[in-house]
């Protein structure tokens, strides 16, 4: 099973570049690595300076880069709902009107669910040892990470309501001497299946051996404020930050001490200011070996 590294941070903090450097480092340690970016603003091909029309690009023998378009993921989800509706009774077919599906793309939570699906697919991947995920906005990612807990809350409530309902239906069938007592309930079975799926996902996200949350912080107050709010958001769903990358920061700076005090649970790494963007496999490889480990006093 692959180990997942999820990069979080304010937009423009350098998440994609840091994720690229991190994946280079894993690849250099002979780990089969996948870098998956959901960022629409910074292309991986631009960072690695490779030109390819393909979805998955092998930049090193053990490093593959790929980009996930969340809009495409949303469309896939809607197509699945559409396919599922073919099982619905005929009179419900009015719901199959194309305009309903056009509206579904704006359904609250759909984009968060797509983000969660990307993480879920990564967690079940058998082809890689390390999977680095570069996320889009922190707000969207926070909601996506909270989703398993929220969904499990509703599923548990619905399963207990359904259990009571089935018991009552059986009781009534018994009283009426009806032979058609409720032995199987499709909804109940589906709910149990969904609960198993989301419980597994929730445990995997909470397993520090499997999932690491990495926060990228710049040397500015806004970035630090955003990082503090991400930390609080993660803690509210039982998750914690494993590592912090201080991007474009002087290793001797007092800024690192300040961050270390605010995030006592996380290890801290520092990427210095190089005065120009880090691009191309050679530079990424060179600078990924020059990441400083902050040593706490």
């Amino acid at each position, binding site marked *: 099973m692959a180990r997942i590294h999820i990069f979080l941070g304010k937009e423009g903090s350098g998440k994609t570049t840091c994720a690229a450097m991190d994946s280079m480092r894993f690849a250099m340690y002979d780990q089969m690595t996948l870098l998956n970016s959901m960022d629409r603003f910074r292309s991986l091909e631009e960072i690695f300076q490779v030109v390819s029309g393909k979805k998955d690009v092998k930049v090193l023998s053990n490093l593959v880069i790929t980009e996930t378009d969340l809009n495409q993921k949303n469309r896939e989800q809607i197509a699945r709902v559409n396919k599922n509706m073919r*099982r619905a009774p005929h009179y419900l077919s009015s*719901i199959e009107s194309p305009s309903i599906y056009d509206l579904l793309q704006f*359904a609250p939570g*759909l984009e968060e669910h797509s983000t969660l699906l990307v993480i879920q697919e990564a967690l079940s991947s058998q082809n890689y040892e390390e999977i680095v995920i570069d996320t889009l906005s922190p707000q969207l990612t926070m909601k996506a990470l909270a989703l398993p807990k929220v969904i499990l809350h509703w599923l548990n409530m619905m399963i207990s309501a359904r259990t009571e*309902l089935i018991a*009552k239906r059986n009781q009534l069938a018994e*009283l*009426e001497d009806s032979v058609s007592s409720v032995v199987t309930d499709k909804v109940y079975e589906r709910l149990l299946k*969904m609960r198993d799926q989301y419980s597994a996902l929730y445990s995997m996200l909470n397993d520090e051996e499997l999932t690491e949350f990495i926060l990228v912080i710049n040397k500015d107050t806004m970035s630090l404020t955003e990082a503090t709010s991400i930390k609080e958001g993660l803690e509210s769903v039982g998750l914690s930050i494993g590592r912090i990358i201080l991007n474009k920061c002087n290793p001797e700076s007092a800024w690192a001490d300040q961050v270390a005090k605010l995030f006592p649970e996380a290890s801290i790494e520092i990427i210095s200011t190089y005065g120009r963007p880090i691009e191309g496999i050679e530079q990424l490889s060179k600078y990924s070996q020059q990441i400083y480990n902050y040593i706490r006093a």
Partner: protein
Amino acid sequence: MPLRTMFQSKSTHKNQEEIPFKHRRSNRIAKEIEELEYSFSLMLYGSFFGIPALPSFMAMELLPDTEEELNGMLEKSVLLEKKSKNKNPLMVEIGV
């Protein structure tokens, strides 16, 4: 037999004394089932009309299997609408 048909068949009795004990018990359970189905539907489809509930895209996955709950919800909404109209003539006046 569909649940609602079973429930309706009991209502042919004129008053409670005429109904045998067994049928009165069935009626009570059928009523409880109706309420449970309604609560379940609210948990399932509440997000479509602004009540905190299971996210709508997940409810859509269960939609093909919840025909009975959907019917129950529609019946209940018609009944509530009728009740509110009877209680409040102003609602009829403004066309609600």
